[in-house]
């Protein structure tokens, strides 16, 4: 479902990680998503847009660079049109439960959990971010706020079967994340379930994660 994009029913752990990293990230830490709470009914809408089919050919850029001129280096959008529909979620609201781990091999002597936790909490609490986080793609900006430790968890708007209230709802296989360490960056999947509005995410290295 890449050419005509269709959204998953719920934000993927990998997208949630992206949101946290937009607020604070350093090579010394690795965010781990524990759970995603779904607060609103799952609704879809379709949007069709004109998009560009091509990418910037790096080789072309390289030759232009050598020549030192921009002659002929552009992309004519009319010759490269693709109309693509996207089936997107509307009106979403989530709570992300996560923690981070220190990546020993990339951590300096001053990288400790307390420091990074403070930075994240300070930024998220003030609405600061490295760049505005987004919900999947950049045109859908994400508003975020920090849930203080003593605040009650927001409850789902309605306790519907669709959100797995009363009976767990199977969401099928969902992208867990992309393994950036491995050769050719394979995608990893897990079997997603909504139980009482909450999607638990398996920990890295658990047997539930499938290649």
């Amino acid at each position, binding site marked *: 479902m890449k050419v005509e994009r269709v959204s998953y029913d719920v934000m993927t752990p990998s997208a949630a990680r992206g949101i946290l990293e937009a607020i604070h990230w350093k090579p010394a830490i690795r965010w781990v998503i524990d759970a995603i709470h779904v607060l609103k009914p799952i609704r879809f809408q379709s949007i069709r847009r004109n998009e560009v089919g091509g990418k910037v050919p790096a080789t072309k850029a390289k030759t232009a660079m*050598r020549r*030192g001129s921009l002659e002929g280096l*552009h*992309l004519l959008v009319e010759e490269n049109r693709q109309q693509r529909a996207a089936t997107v979620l509307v009106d979403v609201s989530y709570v992300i439960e996560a923690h981070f781990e220190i990546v020993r091999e990339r951590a300096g002597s001053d990288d400790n959990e307390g420091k990074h936790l403070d930075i994240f909490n300070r930024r998220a609490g003030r*609405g600061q*971010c490295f760049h505005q986080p987004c919900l999947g793609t950049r*045109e859908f*900006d994400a508003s975020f706020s920090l849930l203080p430790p003593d605040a009650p968890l927001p409850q789902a708007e309605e306790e519907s079967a669709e959100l797995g209230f009363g009976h767990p709802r199977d969401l099928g296989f969902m992208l867990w994340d992309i393994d950036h360490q491995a050769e050719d960056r394979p995608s990893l999947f897990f079997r997603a379930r909504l139980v009482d509005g909450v999607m638990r995410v398996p920990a890295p290295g658990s047997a539930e994660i499938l290649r």
Partner: protein
Amino acid sequence: MAAIQNRYDFVYLFDIINGNPNGDPDSGNMPRQDLDTQKGLVTDVSLKRKIRNYVQLAKGGGPPYAIYMQEKAILNLQHQRAYDALGIKPETKKLPKDEAEAREITRWMCTNFYDVRTFGAVMTTEVNAGQVRGPVQLGFAQSIDPVIPQEITITRSSVTNEKDVEKERTMGRKYIIPYGLYRCHGFVSASLAGDETKGTGFSEEDLNLLFEALTNMFEHDRSAARMEMNAQRLIVFKHDNRMGNASAQDLFKRVAVQRKENASLPRSFSDYIITINQENLPKGVVVIEKL
């Protein structure tokens, strides 16, 4: 040119009179609408196209303001593509490190092309290092009130094909929205402009050009379909901190757009009241009204 040092969030208001701001290819080019609320939509990419076109027009399309994603409609091929004084002479090293080389290409593209520097671009290399995330992020623009598209049938007193000569006339259709005021939110990340490895070098001059484009781009985008589109307000929140001093959503709430009591059917910008709540602004945030 030094990269920007501040985070910015902005609210952009524009309106349309008797035209179609952004057609939906899924429904026969009708103006886009959110089907649940009947509010009109204009996609982010539609606005970005207009920004690119404006910059190309205003700057003549030469470096450092060249536009990579070009529309043929403005093929002003003056080719004054002189050697960029800041041009990097890549050394063909014996053993170029893929990643370093990719980064060099990326940097060169950013230096020369305004749209790559502003919105980013995806560049294909064997090493996946040629992705540029631009500092400027735009959301969808949405109309304040529901819009009611009207289908207008028009006639043409000539025909295209010889075989239709008997007909004498052909009919066509177009959609218009009598009036719609649209609101769009935008974000400018100082980190993505000035970061050592990820930064695109988006500068103060670039930022001013972006605001200039938003202010003037509709003036150079007239067409039969779009008729009168006008930029009405551009309200910028400038943070003194690179990471920002407040959350964007809280700042956006300070800009209220209200329909006047007696205007049940809004037909002009004067049917709306725009208020900017400047009380107790978060420390380090200033409001700049660019328009």
